[in-house]
C-alpha cells in the first residue's frame, strides 16, 4: 500500500495575451496561451507509510511548488497526486491568526481551517494549551504575544492531531531552543507512531540523520531518488559546480571589493580543501584530517611573503587562524613571477556546522603593515558528524572518561 503517489506531476504557469482569453477558456473557448512556463514536469514517486523522505534542491528547483501540490493548495497542470490519509504541513505557522483574538480563539480558528470541528478541538485544547506553555497569555489577545509565543501556539495547533503525512520545512525554527527541542521531539514521536515525514532541507546533516530516502529536484524534475548519502553527494557535486563558477566570476569581476583587498603585489589563485585521500571536499567529518591548499602568484619582487588563513564560523567569528610567520616558515626575497602552493594539514576538530576560510598574503606578522591580498569567504565547507560520539559546541575535544568508584 502506498500512502502518497505522485504520478507524472507537472505544473505550468500560463500567460495569455489578454486575461479575458483565460476567462473565455473557462467557458471552453479553447484560446491558446501565448506562453507556458513549466516549473515542474514529469515528477513521479510513491511514498509508503512510515518512510521519512528528504526533498532537496537548490532555490527555484521546484520544492515549494511540489509541496503545495502535495498539500493540495496548488492544482497540478498535468498528472495527479493521490493521498491516502491526512496531510499536515509545518511550513507556514500562524497562518490566519487574528491579532485581536485570544490564543484560544485562534486555536479554534486555525484547527477549524485544518478541517477539525469544534467538538474535536474541545478534546484537544487542553493538550494544545499545555504544549504551547505560554501560561495566562493563552487567553489574552494575540497582539500582545511575542513572535516566539505566537509560534509556540501555532506549532501546538499544527501538530495537535497526528497526521499520516507531516511536511516539515527544516529551516523552520520554532521559538527558543527549549521549544525547538520540544517540537522536534514531537515530530520524532509522530514518526515513531507511523507518520511519514517529508522534510525539505539544504542541510546534509539533518537529511542523513532523519531520512531514509532523499529526492533531489533540479530544474523542475527529479534527478535523483535514493539513499540520502548517495543523493546528497550528487547534490553537493551539483552545488560545487555552481560555486566554482561563481568564484571565477568573483575573481574576474572588479566589483568584488568586499571579498578582495590589498595591493595585489601577490595574488591568490585558488583555495581548496582536500581530504586525506587528496580529493576535494566540501563536507568534512569531525576529526578528519584535511589539507588546506592555497595557490598564488607573486607579481612584484617581495622581500617577505607571509601566507595566513582564518577559519570562521557561520556568524563570522574566528575559530582558528594562523600564518607562516607564526609557523616560522615565511618565505623571503621572493621574485616576481614566482608561483607558489602552500599546504596546511590539520585535523578538523570542529563542531558540526558551516565554516568559511579567509586567506591573506602579506608581509611581516600581520596584514596591517603591508597587505598584498586578502580574500574573505575564499572557501566554505561543512563539518558533519559521521563517526564521532554526539557532542555540542564549535570545537571537538574528545575526552577520555575514567570513573573512579
Amino acid at each position, binding site marked *: 500500500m502506498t500512502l502518497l503517489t505522485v504520478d507524472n506531476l507537472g505544473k505550468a*504557469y*500560463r500567460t495569455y495575451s489578454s*486575461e*479575458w482569453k*483565460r*476567462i473565455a477558456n*473557462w*467557458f471552453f473557448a479553447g484560446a491558446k496561451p501565448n506562453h507556458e512556463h513549466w516549473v515542474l514536469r514529469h515528477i513521479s514517486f510513491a511514498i509508503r507509510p512510515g518512510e521519512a523522505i528528504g526533498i532537496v534542491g537548490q532555490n527555484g528547483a521546484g520544492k515549494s511548488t511540489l509541496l*503545495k501540490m502535495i*498539500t*493540495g*493548495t*496548488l*492544482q497540478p497542470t498535468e498528472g495527479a497526486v493521490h493521498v491516502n490519509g491526512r*496531510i499536515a504541513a509545518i*511550513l*507556514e505557522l500562524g*497562518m*490566519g491568526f*487574528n491579532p*485581536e*483574538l485570544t490564543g484560544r*480563539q485562534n486555536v*479554534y*480558528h486555525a484547527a*477549524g*481551517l*485544518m*478541517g*477539525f*470541528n*469544534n*467538538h474535536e*478541538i474541545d478534546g484537544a485544547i487542553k493538550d494544545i494549551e499545555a504544549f504551547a506553555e505560554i501560561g495566562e497569555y493563552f487567553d489574552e*489577545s494575540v497582539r500582545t504575544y511575542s513572535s516566539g509565543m505566537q509560534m509556540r501556539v501555532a506549532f501546538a495547533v499544527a501538530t495537535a492531531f497526528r497526521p499520516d503525512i507531516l511536511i516539515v520545512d527544516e529551516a523552520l525554527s520554532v521559538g527558543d531552543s527549549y521549544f525547538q527541542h520540544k517540537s522536534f521531539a514531537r515530530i520524532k514521536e509522530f514518526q515513531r507512531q507511523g507518520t511519514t515525514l517529508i522534510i525539505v532541507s539544504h542541510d546534509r546533516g539533518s537529511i542523513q540523520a532523519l531520512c531514509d530516502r532523499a529526492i533531489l529536484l533540479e530544474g523542475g524534475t527529479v534527478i535523483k531518488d535514493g539513499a540520502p548519502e548517495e543523493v546528497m553527494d550528487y547534490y553537493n557535486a551539483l552545488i560545487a559546480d555552481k560555486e566554482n563558477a561563481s568564484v571565477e566570476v568573483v575573481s574576474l569581476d572588479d566589483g568584488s571589493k568586499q571579498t578582495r583587498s590589498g595591493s595585489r603585489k601577490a595574488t591568490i589563485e585558488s583555495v581548496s580543501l582536500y581530504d586525506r585521500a587528496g580529493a576535494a571536499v566540501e563536507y568534512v567529518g569531525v576529526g578528519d584530517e584535511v589539507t588546506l591548499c592555497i595557490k598564488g602568484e607573486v607579481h612584484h619582487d617581495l622581500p617577505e611573503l607571509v601566507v595566513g588563513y582564518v577559519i570562521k564560523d557561520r556568524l563570522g567569528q574566528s575559530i582558528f587562524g594562523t600564518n607562516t610567520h607564526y609557523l616560522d616558515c615565511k618565505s623571503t626575497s621572493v621574485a616576481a613571477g614566482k608561483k607558489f602552493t602552500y599546504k596546511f594539514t590539520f585535523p578538523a576538530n570542529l563542531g558540526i556546522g558551516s565554516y568559511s576560510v579567509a586567506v591573506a598574503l602579506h608581509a611581516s606578522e600581520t596584514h596591517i603593515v603591508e597587505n598584498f591580498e586578502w580574500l574573505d569567504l575564499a572557501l566554505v565547507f561543512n563539518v558533519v558528524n559521521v563517526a564521532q560520539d554526539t557532542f555540542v559546541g564549535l570545537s571537538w575535544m574528545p575526552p577520555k572518561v575514567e570513573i573512579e568508584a
Partner: protein
Amino acid sequence: MFGMLKGLWEYRSFIVTSIRNEFIARFARSRLGGLWMIIHPLSQVAIYALILSNVLAARLPGIDNKYAYALYLMAGVLAWNLFSEIVSRCLNLFIEQGNLMKKMRFPRIALPVIVVGSCLLNNLLLFVAVLVVFAALGQMPSLDMFWLIPLTLVVTALAVGLGLVLGVVNVFVRDIGQVVPIILQVWFWFTPIVYSANVIPEYLRSFMNFNPMFSVVNAYHDVLVYQVSPDLNEIGITIGASILLMLLGLFMFRRAAPEMVDSL
C-alpha cells in the same frame, strides 16, 4: 457540486467560528462594539431623511404616517445594504484571502459562505434596529413582514451570484475592483431607495425594469411600509436572474479555482 456541499459540511465549525471571530475582531476595543454596525446605516437614513424629507415627503402617496419618508428610506436601505455589502466584500474576497488560499488547503467555497453569513447577521441586526425605529415612529410590525425571509434570500442570491462572478474576474483583471464601487454608487441612485418609484419619468420606466434590484426594493417597500404582500409577478424575473447569476458564479468559481491560486 456535491463535493462543495460535503466540504462545507465538514468545515461547518470553521465557518461558524469565522463568522463569530469576524464580529469579535471587528469590534474588539471599541466601546460601542456591535452598535456601530447599526449606527452606520441608520445615520445614513437620518441624513437622507433630514435633507430630502421636505422635498419628497409630499410625493409618497398611500401612507398616513408623517414619518412616511423615513420609513420608506429605511426599508430600501435594509435591502440595498445587504446587496451592496455582499457584492463589495465578494469582490475583493479572493485577493484579500490570497495568502490563506495559497498556504492552506480548505474548501474555497467556505470563503464566500463566511461572507454571506456575516452579512446576513449584520442585516439581521439592522432589521431589529429598523423594527425598533419603526415602532418608535408608530409603525407596528405586521404579518406581511414574514415576506422578508424569501426577499432576503432573493437579494442574497442575486448579490452572491454577482459578487462571485466579479470577485473571480477581479483576481485576473484588477480593474474590476476599481470600477465596481463606482457602478454600485450609480446603481444605488438608479434604484428607488431615496426617492419614490413614481417620480421616475415615463420614458425611463421601461429602462428601470432591467434593474433586478428595482422590484426587490419595491417589494421591501410593500412589505415594510405599505404592509401589503409584494407583487410576485414583478419579483419573478429577479428570482430567475438571481438563480442564473448564482449558477454562473458557482460555475466560474469552480472553473477558475485552480488558476486563481496561481494568479494571487
